[in-house]
């Protein structure tokens, strides 16, 4: 078995083809070993994990991938016995960490062997000071005060947070909080570090910070296990374990998985851009980064070099406030908008001009804290600007009164659970129209329409809290759609959704846009901007830095780098050839045409 794993040609374990070898015959000191592990939550008949057998060598960086509900989190929770000790259900099989069977051990006892970092960084930080946060686990193990103090510095340095000891964790950015959570886990010096979707709630800068910290942690014999939706980020892993409906479907180095796009698609994942480009060009090799991809493409095709630096202006595109294509006033417009929060020294928004016309699809992007949500809430009428003018249909907001709070402008919050409260899906949708004073028959009609539109008709009588995250997100959109808004503002509508759910959600949003509803979408996801938006507004420190077409936006790598907005890999690769492609497919067409 060990020999198999070290021979590249035999590394891929198509587990359905290859029955698990006799685990007892393997004397290797695996960092982690799962033997025919199955688990079903509560009284559910459907297992979340089904006979998973997996062995991980010490020092390996393993990515665990799969669609939502594939069993990724359940799998990693078995490594410190959160499953089954914390989650009620039926557990079968055997888990070993460092050769030791975990049966009968308590979760807290395993914290020194298995460090775990969760997706929700707010729920795993308990202290008012970074040093105390790192010290927490060490205190639990009754380490001496001097030993605790000795471990804090190295743990923080390992994740690039040296010097943050006295900071209040609530004042850290999302990326810093998640790196602090990693430092907390590292302080106990675990042999295995598990990161369960650590970057889901982060902006591109936070994601980059966390993955940079993870890359620094490689080596030193520590085993790293990362659960993640995004295959692109996991190209640096030694191996990937692909789960589908609770079964380990495939386990191999990333290149071998990327070489099987049909399997990736079948499991509800997005093939990395670079792999997609190379595959479509008939290049069998796999590139881990843009440099490698460029070399592979140039080895097969003769293509021009990059455009000269500084070819495009870096200043904001001409302001669009007040402009219209058809002479009508914009749907909503802000002029010289300024907003300062109470007790804040600086303005959250400063001199922002923005006009959104009927039927537009605008992506609102920028770092965390750049003012995106503040601007969106001003547009929705939730926040009162300190300076400037807000016009709805060309009229001052005061003249428009509170009408735009009652349906004209819909706002879908990032977390759908911030609005869901009713006992059934249908009741949740009828809540808004009822508030507008519509009759029982009218609210029922609207519920029928939007349930059909968002594909939730079959679950109309279900308790909304029992729906999946993707379904709850669609319900939140449906509940706002029932108000028949002319402008729909979506605050990061795909956060926490897997690729298939993201596509489904965005297909819905695109369809609404086709029907004439203007869309303003706050997002951090580059490929969503490239694939769906037609216009991008970039905010930087409360000021508008860019307002223009998507291609022009993605064609300014310097500005994007300064704003920590990661280019889609296909776009980055296309710029090596002097063009700006928005997708892998577009780049492939361009290469074939220009070679």
């Amino acid at each position, binding site marked *: 078995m060990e020999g198999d794993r070290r021979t590249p040609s035999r590394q891929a374990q198509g587990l359905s083809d290859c029955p698990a070898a006799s685990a007892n015959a393997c004397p290797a000191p695996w960092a982690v070993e799962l033997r025919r592990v199955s688990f079903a939550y509560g009284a559910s008949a459907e297992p979340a994990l089904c006979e998973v057998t997996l062995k991980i060598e010490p020092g390996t960086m393993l990515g665990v991938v799969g669609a939502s509900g594939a069993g990724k989190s359940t799998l990693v929770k078995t490594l410190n016995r*959160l499953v089954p000790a914390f989650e009620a259900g039926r557990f079968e099989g055997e888990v070993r960490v460092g050769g030791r069977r975990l049966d009968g051990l308590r979760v807290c006892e395993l914290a020194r062997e298995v460090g775990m970092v969760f997706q929700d960084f707010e729920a795993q930080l308990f202290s008012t*000071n970074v040093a105390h946060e790192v010290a927490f686990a060490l205190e639990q193990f009754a*380490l001496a005060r001097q030993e605790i103090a000795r471990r804090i510095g190295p743990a923080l340095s390992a994740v690039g947070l040296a010097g943050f000891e006295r900071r209040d964790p609530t004042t850290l950015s999302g990326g810093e909080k998640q790196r602090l959570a990693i430092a907390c886990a590292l302080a106990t010096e675990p042999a295995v570090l598990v990161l369960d979707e650590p970057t889901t709630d982060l902006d591109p800068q936070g994601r980059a910070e966390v993955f940079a910290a993870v890359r620094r942690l490689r080596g030193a014999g520590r085993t790293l296990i990362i659960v993640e939706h995004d295959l692109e980020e996991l190209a640096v892993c030694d191996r990937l374990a692909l789960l589908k409906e609770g079964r380990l479907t495939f386990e191999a180095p990333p290149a071998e998985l990327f070489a099987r796009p049909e399997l990736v698609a079948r499991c509800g994942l997005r093939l990395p851009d670079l792999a997609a480009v190379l595959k479509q060009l008939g290049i069998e090799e796999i590139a881990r980064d843009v440099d490698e991809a460029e070399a592979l493409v140039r080895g097969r095709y003769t293509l021009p070099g990059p455009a000269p630096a500084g070819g495009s202006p870096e200043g904001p595109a001409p302001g669009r406030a007040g402009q219209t294509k058809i002479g009508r006033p914009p749907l909503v417009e802000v002029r010289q908008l300024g907003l300062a929060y109470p007790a804040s020294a600086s303005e959250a928004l400063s001199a922002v001009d923005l006009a959104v016309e009927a039927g537009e699809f605008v992506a609102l992007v920028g770092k965390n804290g750049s003012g995106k949500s503040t601007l969106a809430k001003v547009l929705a009428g939730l926040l009162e600007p300190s300076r400037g003018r807000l016009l709805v249909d060309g009229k001052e907001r005061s003249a428009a009164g509170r009408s735009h709070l009652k*349906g004209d402008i819909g706002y879908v919050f990032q977390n759908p659970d911030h*609005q869901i409260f009713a006992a059934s899906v249908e009741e949740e949708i009828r809540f808004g129209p009822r508030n507008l004073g519509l009759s029982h028959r009218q609210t029922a009609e609207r519920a029928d329409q939007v349930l059909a539109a968002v594909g939730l008709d079959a679950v109309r009588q279900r308790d909304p809290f029992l729906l999946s995250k993707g379904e709850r997100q669609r319900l939140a959109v449906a509940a706002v759609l029932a108000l028949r808004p002319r402008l729909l503002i979506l605050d990061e509508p795909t956060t926490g959704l897997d690729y298939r759910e993201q596509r489904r959600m965005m297909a819905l949003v695109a369809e609404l846009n086709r029907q004439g509803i203007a869309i303003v979408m706050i997002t951090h996801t580059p490929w969503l901007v490239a694939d769906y938006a037609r216009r991008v507004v970039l905010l930087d420190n409360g000021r508008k830095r860019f307002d223009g077409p998507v291609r022009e936006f993605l064609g300014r790598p310097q500005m994007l780098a300064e704003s920590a907005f990661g280019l889609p890999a296909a776009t980055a690769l296309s710029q090596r050839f002097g063009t700006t492609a928005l997708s892998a497919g577009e780049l492939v067409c361009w290469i074939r045409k220009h070679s």
Partner: protein
Amino acid sequence: MPIYLYIEGESWLHRLHPVVKVWALFAAFWSVYWVDQPLALVPLGLLMTVAAQAGGAWANFYRLRYLFAGVVFFTALSWMVFYRQGTPLIDTPLVRVSRASLLFGFGRGLKLAELLGTSVLFLSSTKIEEFGAGLTRLGVPYRVGFAITLAFRLVPLFIDSALTVVQAQRLRGYEFRRGGPLARMRRYVPVVVPVFMEALRKANAMAMALEARGFGAGGRPTSLIDRELRRSDRMAVALLGGLAVAYFLIYYAGYGAIRPD
């Protein structure tokens, strides 16, 4: 915006042992409890002012200035009306004001302000972890102390969550201010349910994270901030003990009470 009152510093107030700070809180509450006479409350007020200056806590007192003013004003006003003893200066069926009621009302307002001030001073110079460590050293079970400190951490998160839910429902056309007091309370169901569900989810996630970080791994947890009492700590304990005794003697001698006439 910072959500805690704690102000980072190295003043003598910050450096006091957590147990001494908890003792100081108790001694101040004890002292205030025994007296109603505004004049008798002045020394404690002065002491608090000196401590606020030394501990760099003025920013918090300024931040809460309207709360302090409101507490003194409205408490004084209500007790001036409801305190029925002493020769009346104004006597109507609804309002009866006497010299004693003025003194009593002002004293009550001052008392509440001093209780509030002591708490602000404590929270300005004491990390929540120090508070927990202090409670544990005083014999409170670790889990109870931790639960108290965790509550400080969670309350602002839930308030933040509730404000977001209110915004979400307002945008769906919901009017919170409709009907009488009871009807208005019922109208908060669309806020309470999401916040409660969020609290359940958060509590579950937090419990998992706590376990995964070794909470309850066994034995008595140590503390990064735990240390032995210094000479300055012992002096502070003695001074505070003296203060508590002095206030009890003021009460015992009858100088702390308001005499109607």
